[in-house]
């Protein structure tokens, strides 16, 4: 079966699944799945850029997604005036000092004679770190003391939330540059471990730097790019519109707001998909695949393998960051403790592998399919276990335990899907060629 047949076939399957969900479980949940499916598809595109085009193994997707979430807060929230007065300047100064320390350390390492450059760099870092902490600590305490129940953080810039999407991409790109500079060019496993580490660190920062992201207190009520549900329900024009369609005002409001998100996300997805397709078929895309398939040969042809890897690693991470910003916009809140590597890193990998690594359409289809499965496995697993336990005696401890564990069916199923696809169809549903 050729790809020109597979792509419409599997896209149709996705459409059918979502329409089916709408008919059986209601349009609200179908749109919920569709919107997160769009975001997942964008994340899968980003990972496919890195893995499918260039063979780079990034297991820090969660970190880049979380940076996108942080961008939403930094762009869209209103600035907290008293907090800025209390310690805003101090924090900015501390950040500048921290950056200066790192630059100074790098310069020292480069300039000092080889014999004592290790110690000189170490000394610069120690001195710089001490100064940084002495400026940073009082400023942070001051900021976090400003009405901690409601704010206790600096807030953002108060700009339209849509701006956060490209900014999320930029933040993720910056983080990717740091990682890529150190870990690319070494063996592939090292990049994996390094990205795993940076993701955990980014989550730790979001969880514990209250002045930045309110930490585990979460940021609620991030401004939305679509009308507010309550306002919409009070709008007389909308009430008339809803009664024309014969649905309740609440349902109509919920569904039209979700459709708004769907439209915006679809525009981004389609634009990125077109760009990715153009890139894949351009000379640049051919070069990337040549490097992926044989680094030595590509290097011998004069291609700078490490630089090209750095380039595509940054691009892919930026796409993930953008998707992360979109996801936080959709949720309307930033909850750092919900970032779990199994959900935000490894699930995206399942999407890319199942969909077909190296094929952009495959990644998008995989994103939708696996997301749908991820959502639906839980009720399916519960139903299956209910059927199994109904054979057991009433009130048996084992039956209760099994029913309580239904939620963990997801991981098991995803692992099995990944292993089965890798074993029997390693090129995925829509192969590269």
């Amino acid at each position, binding site marked *: 079966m050729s790809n020109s047949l597979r792509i419409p076939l599997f896209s149709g399957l996705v459409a059918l699944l979502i329409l089916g969900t709408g008919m059986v479980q209601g349009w609200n949940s179908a749109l919920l799945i569709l919107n997160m499916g769009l975001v997942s598809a964008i994340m899968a595109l980003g990972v496919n850029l890195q893995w499918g085009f260039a*063979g780079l193994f990034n297991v820090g997707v969660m970190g880049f997604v979380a940076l996108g979430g942080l961008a939403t807060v930094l762009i869209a929230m209103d600035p907290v005036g008293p907090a800025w007065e209390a310690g805003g300047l101090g924090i900015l100064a501390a950040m500048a000092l921290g950056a200066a320390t790192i630059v100074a350390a790098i310069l020292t390492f480069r300039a000092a004679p080889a014999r004592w450059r290790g110690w000189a760099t170490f000394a610069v870092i120690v001195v710089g770190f001490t100064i940084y902490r002495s400026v940073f600590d009082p400023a942070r305490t001051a900021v976090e003391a400003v009405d901690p129940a409601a704010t206790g953080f600096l807030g953002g810039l108060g700009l339209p939330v849509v701006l956060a999407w490209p900014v999320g991409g930029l933040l993720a790109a910056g983080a990717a540059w740091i990682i890529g500079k150190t870990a690319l060019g070494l*063996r592939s496993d090292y990049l994996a*471990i390094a990205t795993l580490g940076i993701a955990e660190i980014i989550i730790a920062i979001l969880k514990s730097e209250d002045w930045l992201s309110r930490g585990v207190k979460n940021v609620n009520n991030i401004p939305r790019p679509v009308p507010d549900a309550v306002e919409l329900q009070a709008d007389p024009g909308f009430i008339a519109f809803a009664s024309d369609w014969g649905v309740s005002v609440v349902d109509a409001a919920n569904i039209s707001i979700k459709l708004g998100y769907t439209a915006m996300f679809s525009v981004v997805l389609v634009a990125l998909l077109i760009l990715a397709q153009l890139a894949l078929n351009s000379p640049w895309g051919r070069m990337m695949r040549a490097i992926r398939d044989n680094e030595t040969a590509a290097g011998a042809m004069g291609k700078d393998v490490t630089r090209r890897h750095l380039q595509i690693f940054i691009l892919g991470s930026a796409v993930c960051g953008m998707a992360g910003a979109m996801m936080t916009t959709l949720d309307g809140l930033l909850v750092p403790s919900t970032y779990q590597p*199994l959900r935000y890193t490894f699930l995206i*990998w399942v999407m890319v592998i199942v969909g077909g690594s190296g094929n952009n359409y495959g990644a998008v289809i995989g994103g939708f399919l696996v997301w749908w499965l991820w959502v639906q496995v839980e009720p399916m697993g519960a139903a299956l276990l209910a059927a199994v336990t109904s054979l057991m005696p009433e009130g048996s401890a084992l039956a209760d335990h099994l029913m309580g564990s239904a939620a963990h069916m997801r991981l*098991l199923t995803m692992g099995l899907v990944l*292993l089965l696809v890798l*074993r029997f169809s390693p090129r995925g549903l829509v192969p590269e060629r």
Partner: protein
Amino acid sequence: MLNALVALMNFVVIPATAYGAQLALGALGVTLIYGILRFSNFAHGDTMAFGTMVTILLTWALQAAGVSLGPLPTALIAMPVGILGAAALLLLTDRFVYRFYRAQRAAPVILVIVSMGVMFVYNGLTRFVIGVDDQRFADGERFILSANAFRDWSGLDEGLALRTTQAITIVTAIIVVAALFWFLNRTRTGKSMRAFSDNEDLALLSGISPERVVMVTWLLVAALATIAGTLYGLDKTFKPFTYFQLLLPIFAAAIVGGLGSPIGAIAGGFIIAFAEVAITYPLRKILSYLLPEAWEPAGLVQLLATEYKFAVSFIILIVVLLIRPTGLFKGKAV
């Protein structure tokens, strides 16, 4: 002065030694798989969790039946069964998953992705059976040397406590490592494993059976992972997600020491553990004994908050990668 030394021992040296021993055992497992099977096993943390889970379930059964080791934790009796459980799981996985890719001579990165799938499955299995919550299963005597007893004996202000679990961790780790090195250096099977790790083709030519070497490796890994996991669980608590997170310090330890080098794994484990504990521990108490009163620090002198302990292993990892990518003990870096 003595007080400072005792405080340092109590809050930094002893916990870090125990933690380092646990990391070293974990890193040994990772490094063995890397040396023989030639991939980074992402499922290692969850292998540890699975073995520990079997141990815990049996420990509970033994506790319910009234069996105990007196002052020692009951989990020590249950551990061999946990090892068997983990070994069965690993061998089954090898038979149905990894063997296929070995026969194909798949690229290492494919095996890493496969191990990711295996990780999902193990993780799901563990959560399915025992849930996601903290489980405590330590029993027996809590302290060998309690802080109060030490204070009465020495007359110092600072107490020194040695928990039973910490002592057991260190003793067990020494025994296990000694046994492992004896096995690798003195027995025929161990030697054939080292030959296989050094040069696969030469080893095959001299008649070493690859499947046997792989099987023995998985058995060793099951034992190392279960022991490391159980010791960690006894010392702290058992929570499946924590075991997954241990993956980072364990990998850092193995890479810092040099992937594929057993001695390196042990050294790396202790380096990571000492750095992590020393940097995230508030040093104020120790400094207050050492410095004259006027110099006494106002803050906690905690270099990094405890949440950033992963950052420590990460930074050490990055520095080693930048300066010496093969690790301290010249592992194999391709």
